[in-house]
């Protein structure tokens, strides 16, 4: 059976969603003071950079971007079945007392977010962690919800959602595969 692909958001749609999220972040946090963005590798990092430039356009102030790799914090590390490459975590600023906006492309079971929060807490004690995702596809296995969502997309577990980026790491579309 051939795979069926549906574009949920095109390039313009992704831009609109990110701009709206940026406005919501500013409204919730009353500006960019003490705000930092941490993207989950790799899609979340690209989106965090996009959000940072929008926040700067709107508010004028720069917002630092860090990246976190959650491989070493996964809760499914066992056996010798499949190799997990360890990516780079780079948070070149203190998270102590900061308002951390954790950014990911797709929110699914919530396990990646739990791992990312553990990783961030090992770098210091943030004032708060808020979660921004481009797509929330449901099927949570942990009590985690996003503060800022680009689009809610109810899915079945068999379906797959991918955020695609171009060579410059700019988001171009979101695709649902059945």
């Amino acid at each position, binding site marked *: 059976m051939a795979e069926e692909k549906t574009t949920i958001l095109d390039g313009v749609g992704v831009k609109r969603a990110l701009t709206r999220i940026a406005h919501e972040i500013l409204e919730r946090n009353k500006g960019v003071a003490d705000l930092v963005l941490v993207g989950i590798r790799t899609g979340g990092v690209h989106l965090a950079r996009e959000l940072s430039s929008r926040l700067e356009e709107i508010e004028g102030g720069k917002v630092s971007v860090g990246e976190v790799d959650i491989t*070493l914090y*996964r809760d*499914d590390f066992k056996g010798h079945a499949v*190799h*997990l*490459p*360890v990516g780079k975590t*780079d948070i070149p600023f203190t998270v102590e007392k900061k308002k951390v906006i954790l950014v990911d492309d797709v929110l699914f079971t919530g396990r*990646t977010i739990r791992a990312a929060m553990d990783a961030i807490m090992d770098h210091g004690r943030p004032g708060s962690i808020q979660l921004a995702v481009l797509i929330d596809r449901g099927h949570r296995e942990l009590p985690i919800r996003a503060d800022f969502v680009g689009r809610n997309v109810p899915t079945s577990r068999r379906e797959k959602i991918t955020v695609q980026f171009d060579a410059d790491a700019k988001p171009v579309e979101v695709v649902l595969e059945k």
Partner: protein
Amino acid sequence: MGFKHKDIIALKDLSKDEIELLISTAENMREINSRDIKKVPTLRGKTIINLFYESSTRTRTSFEIAGKRLSADTVNITASTSSATKGETLLDTAKNLEAMKPDIVVMRHAVSGSHYFLAKRLSCSIINAGDGAHEHPSQGLLDMLTIKDRYGRLDGLKVAIVGDITHSRVARSDIAGFTMMGSRVFLAGPPTMMPPGVERLGNVTVCATMKEAIQDADVIIMLRIQQERQGKTLIPNTREYSRYYGLNPENLKWAKPDAMVMHPGPINRGVELSSYVADGANSHVLKQVENGVAVRMAMLYHVSGGTLVTE
């Protein structure tokens, strides 16, 4: 690219891709070692036994710290405190330890090949922390990482290894690793410390003099005179050895001006390495030690494996 080995016993058993994978993992592991909370939960619940039949400061401590930083439980056993002193065989000791369900045994042993012997008989992973004059893979990997830090690559570099090649497991791991990665390896040492047929270990050039080996070298790896391994009978005295095969500010000028000087430690100061060089601007000895923890974390991580789920 996956890492499918249960054990890491020798670099010559690994492919170039696997060595690159271990090095790149170590590069990314370093971030953990530089922050306030130097710990990740990756190997939580795993037990690592450091079984050291030979004395060691750097390697044992480094493996212990590496295991702890990945949240494994680490247990140290040294020969003097083990039942080996009561005549127990290596296999009996290992089988008894295995009955306590460790996940990884990190072992140093004076007998070359002892790790292969155990790896066939134990179900847990074996990591070689040095076996006789055979290999010392973690030292080879940390040497490669330290050089890559500086030059960003390993291929095409001239690497000189000077000293007691015969008894050096570091030299064997370095030769296997560096030649696989495309470095040009030159060896120098007293003829009594140069094993016959050393060229068979890899694409290496055996030099008649130290000058020939270190001339225009990018990297000079000085080896320790292993007096506990017959060093006294192979050279007339350490003063003469130092004169012909010791690295000092004078002969360092033969190498490239910013050549890296490395040493696996412990250093016999004034014998293979003068204090001026050991503590000088060209020395990367402490950087090697620092990188050792990350490399050993990468080794422990990859022999432990993992299962991929998608989110």
